């Protein structure tokens, strides 16, 4: 049976001023998967993340964590936030300590771990994100890519079960962004559920196991990437572009219709192999 780590039923969230940000969202995140949430700016992706880890309190509907409805008691809330990590889009907002070590230790300290353990967790998070050498560097002198890694280490040090990343590749250059995507793969292999929101459809298509499309605070479509990105209706209505792999594949089918019997290519390699077929 499929195991869901987080599930919502008819989730609703309105800001205190009455703006409805999430509406009738029923979404289920399967444990151990790589999941992407796509949709235009303002679709409510960030709000969804903050509602799932209890920082925003749902104004309607239910949220289940490991099939248990979440409660907003102080202790339960802290446990939820520990296990559901959020990496913010702009690292400049997330980083505020004098140096990298202190920065990463913020979460573990707040969890009330003993000192020796805090140090261990921090060093582990730094080594995983490949920034041990930045340990004593002040945060505001780092490059954009380095800041991004620190902001991920921030969350890793709390050892969450699921990590939500808000547009992790938005502020970084292509090389860093590729390194990050590989790193997310690695984390996933270690058993973490990874959810990322992004605009970058070309990057998401080969990476994701499952895709959610959000629009105007609702869940607009969901499915495996091969399905979602070949569904013209969904793409058009949600203002999404087609990944180029699919575009080339469809162009390829025009001249070689018989290639249809093979599976839709999911990566560059698969596509090129298909192209080499006579």
């Amino acid at each position, binding site marked *: 049976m499929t195991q869901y780590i987080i599930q919502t039923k008819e989730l609703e969230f309105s800001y205190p*001023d009455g703006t409805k940000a999430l509406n009738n969202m029923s979404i289920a995140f399967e444990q151990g998967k790589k999941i992407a949430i796509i949709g235009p700016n303002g679709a409510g992706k960030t709000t969804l993340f903050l509602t799932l880890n209890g920082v925003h309190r749902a104004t309607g509907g239910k949220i289940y964590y490991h099939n248990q409805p979440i409660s907003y008691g102080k202790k339960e809330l*802290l446990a939820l936030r520990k296990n559901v990590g959020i990496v913010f889009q702009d690292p400049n907002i997330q980083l505020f300590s004098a140096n990298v070590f202190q920065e990463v230790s913020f979460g573990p300290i707040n969890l009330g771990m003993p000192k020796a353990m805090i140090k261990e967790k921090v060093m582990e998070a730094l080594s995983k994100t490949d920034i041990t050498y930045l340990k004593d560097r002040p945060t505001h002198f780092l490059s954009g890519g380095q800041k991004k890694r620190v902001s991920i280490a921030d969350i890793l040090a709390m050892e969450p079960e699921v990590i939500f990343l808000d547009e992790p590749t938005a502020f970084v250059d292509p090389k860093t962004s590729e390194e990050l995507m590989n790193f997310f793969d690695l984390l996933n292999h270690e058993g973490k559920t990874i959810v990322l929101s992004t605009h970058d459809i070309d990057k998401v298509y080969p990476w994701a196991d499952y895709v959610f499309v959000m629009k105007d605070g609702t869940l607009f479509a969901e499915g495996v990437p091969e399905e979602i990105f070949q569904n013209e209706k969904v793409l058009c209505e949600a203002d999404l572009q087609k990944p180029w792999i699919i575009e080339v594949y469809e162009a390829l089918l025009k001249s070689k219709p018989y290639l249809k019997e093979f599976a839709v290519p999911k990566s560059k390699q698969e596509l090129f192999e298909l192209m080499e077929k006579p």
Partner: protein
Amino acid sequence: MISIDHYAYMNRLKQIHPMEKFALSMGTLVICMFFKTWLLHFSVIAFMSFLILYYAKIPFKAYFKLMLVPLAFLSVGVLGIAVTITRNPSLLTYGFKVGNWMIGVEKQGFDQAVLTFSRAYASVTCLYFLALTTPMVDVIWILKQMRVPRILTEMMTIIYRFIFVLLETASMMYLSQECRLGYASISKSYHSLGQLVSNLFIKSFQRSQELFTALSTRGYTGSLEVLEEEYVYCSKNIRFIIIAEIFFIGLAILL
């Protein structure tokens, strides 16, 4: 993000000449200040509320919420005026003894409390009429017309714009700290809030330098002048304002 600011742009009277709105609200406010009849004050409250709800089309629920805002200060302040602590029981019309002291209410203090209460509420509705129908940019324009020193209006322009930029930054910072359990206890809250504020200050400093660079590329050399659109006076509105003010003065004198 700030509800009054939101309605200042979203109301039906936004297009009216700012000076007309300013004259009506400030004229009435001054009349409220100088006349000590609570009946006048209540008619001003009714009049301004009518303009705000019916003409400006501010939602009733939002307006009601705003009317509750002053209550915190008002209830404590009015209590302070009304209640007297004294050793001389003859001063009080109503009171009780605590040790050698009497806590209670005297007639004059009570009357003054009622007057202050009604005057303050009436004044607040006048302020609300201006605030809910006039965007801050227009308020700054009014100040320019009134020959307020340029340096003040220029600073106001920058401050107003960056209030929203910094508010957004601050709230995102707060959320990200909350995600990492930064507000789990009081002492942690102090630590986190201190970090938030000092970072916000450093960000403000950086932003000011970036803003200076950006404005320099557009030819800034020390003056922040912009082109303002011209408003046209409407004689019908001016007549309405004059009649309203005469009415209130008359009402105040008659009562």
